[in-house]
């Protein structure tokens, strides 16, 4: 039994990869089978990941050398509590988006690209899972490229002019980013002669006084590289275009998951390979804190001026990435735990918001936030979920976002930087300024002008109608909204996972 569980994370990646390569072939034969197969694969990975999480929660850590090679020579897979949580999150959200895609893909994409879309989708999922479970920096680079290229393919799959342009921009900047990461890995290899994170930590410890400049260079290259990849504020230029022009299921994956896995990988390298001493001694911590504060404020400001809903959500992601980096920069137990929790909560919120945006586009064809009057009556369930996610984004108690912001505030007290609480509150208020008008317009304004004209000026009393979108789009939205409330009221289970990891890292 133990041996089987040890192999499971590796099998998840391989299984998803194999399924992804089957997709284009399957699409030639029967296009209708692609979506069910992708759902089946992501669903079974989700079930397997629950098994893994259960095993890891009993205090075991999975360490598996791929194809029987012992760690310093072979590639090692390590699944600790946060990794198992991330696998569960990745496959779970991918599963929900897959269910949503059944109808959405038929509506938003040309029929001929369906097979290729699902191939890229599963490839992206396999890349993300591989990235979080890998304990080998070069293997991480390979998975970074797999995730990056397939994410670009997800954007480009729409085939419109904007989507192609955004995809090319994303591809070029992401390649520069991974070039920087590869360079940084090269410097680490120069210092230590190892690629396994555990062994790097061992080798680096006695010699770190001898190569201060080289360590500095390695960290700077990695910060720039992972910063571009995860859209850290001044390096976020590719994100708004790519996330707003992609089809809505892909924007949900890109915004909720793809930018986060890079942060997990970066955190592993920073905290485990380099260690806390280097983290505190070099000024990397101060850099991350300053940039995170700027990201939190500037991202929200940029979001405020956007008119298109998906663009607004994309800029909001830039601000939320700032929160996660703030947690890492604080480097205190509460700060780090809140940063990790925010990865999870934000994945739920942003997926929910993007899926709602897609559903609104599906039913009414509207994209601009100022056309949403009366939307709360036409699509009560979708707008209800949207409202829950937006409240959570602002940080209202009883919703998931509150817990992580509260944790960040506690973390900044621990780190003796109370001024950051002001920044967190200010950013939360800015979030309110760009989400609440949408909700207010949806529920509290008059009906459309168009309706007025057809009725001859009589405004009928507003009535709730059931959403005119397929059930397969509605169910994931409802599950995500319930998940946000669950995280807000019972965060204990998840925090338990996270605190185990934080205790290991700090």
């Amino acid at each position, binding site marked *: 039994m133990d041996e089987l569980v040890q192999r499971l994370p590796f099998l998840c990646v391989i299984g998803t990869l194999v399924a992804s390569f089957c997709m284009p072939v399957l699409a030639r034969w029967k296009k209708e089978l692609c979506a069910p197969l992708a759902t089946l694969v992501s669903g079974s990975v989700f079930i397997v990941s629950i098994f893994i999480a259960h095993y890891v929660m009993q205090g075991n850590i999975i360490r598996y050398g791929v194809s029987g090679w012992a760690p310093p020579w072979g590639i090692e897979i390590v699944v600790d509590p946060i990794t198992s949580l991330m696998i569960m999150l990745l496959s779970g959200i991918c599963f929900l988006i897959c269910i949503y895609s059944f109808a959405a893909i038929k509506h938003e994409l040309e029929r001929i690209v369906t097979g290729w879309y699902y191939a890229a989708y599963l490839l992206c999922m396999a890349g993300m899972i591989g990235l979080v479970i890998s304990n080998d920096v070069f293997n991480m680079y390979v998975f970074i*490229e797999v995730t990056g*290229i397939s994410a*670009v393919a997800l954007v480009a799959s729409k085939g419109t002019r904007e989507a192609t*342009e955004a*995809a*090319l921009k994303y*591809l070029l900047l992401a390649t*520069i980013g991974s070039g920087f990461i590869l360079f940084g890995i*090269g410097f680490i*290899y120069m210092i230590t002669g190892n690629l396994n994170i555990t062994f790097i930590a061992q080798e680096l410890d006695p010699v770190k006084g001898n190569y201060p400049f080289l360590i500095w260079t390695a960290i700077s290259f990695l910060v720039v590289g992972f910063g571009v990849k995860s859209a850290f504020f001044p390096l976020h230029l590719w994100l708004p275009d790519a996330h707003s022009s992609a089809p809505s299921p892909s924007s949900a994956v890109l915004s909720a998951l793809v930018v986060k896995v890079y942060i997990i990988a970066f955190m592993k390298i920073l905290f485990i390979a380099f260690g806390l001493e280097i983290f505190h001694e070099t000024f990397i911590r101060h850099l991350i804190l300053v940039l995170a504060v700027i990201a939190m404020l500037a991202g929200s400001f940029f979001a405020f001026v956007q008119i298109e809903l998906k663009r607004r959500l994309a800029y909001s992601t830039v601000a939320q990435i700032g929160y996660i980096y703030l947690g890492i920069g604080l480097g205190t137990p509460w700060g780090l735990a809140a940063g990790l929790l925010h990865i999870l909560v934000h994945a739920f919120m942003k997926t929910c918001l993007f899926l709602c945006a897609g559903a609104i586009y599906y039913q009414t064809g509207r994209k601009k936030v100022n056309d949403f009057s009366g939307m709360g009556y036409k699509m009560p369930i979708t707008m209800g979920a949207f409202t829950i996610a937006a409240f959570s984004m602002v940080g209202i108690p009883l919703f998931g976002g509150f817990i992580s912001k509260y944790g960040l505030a506690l973390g900044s007290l621990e780190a003796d930087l109370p001024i950051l609480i002001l920044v967190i509150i200010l950013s939360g208020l800015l979030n309110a300024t760009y989400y609440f008008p949408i909700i207010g317009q949806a529920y509290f304004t008059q009906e459309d002008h168009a309706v007025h004209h057809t009725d001859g000026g009589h405004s009928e009393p507003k009535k709730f109608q059931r959403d005119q979108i397929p059930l397969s789009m509605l169910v994931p939205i409802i599950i995500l909204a319930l998940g946000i409330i669950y995280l807000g009221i019972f965060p204990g289970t998840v925090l338990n996972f996270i605190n185990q990891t934080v205790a290991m890292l700090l």
Partner: protein
Amino acid sequence: MDLQLFLLNFPYFVAIILFSMGTLIVLTQPNLIKKVIGINILQSAIFLFYIIVGDIHGGIPPIYDPNLPDALYINPLPSCLMLTGIVVGFSVTAFALALIVKLYIYYGTISSPNFMKMK
């Protein structure tokens, strides 16, 4: 400056200069094909860097020779890693060119300052 040390570490300087050049080309050139060339220069710089990291002064290629029991071989691992890097570079180039072909169909040009501007 110690000339001997400089000459010994000459390839590192070349790698850094090429890397900076590649990055600059990608970010500043309006022509999309030139941007792709910039990506290739950037990646070649990284390949060069890894190969020098694996180099040992006076080492011979790492092919086992039974006649030379105590020969000094260079470190083959970084060169092997770069095989993966080359494959990645190839696929990125192919993908970028495919996207550029599509953009050419839409715009009728591949060189416009309107591409890639910030919105």
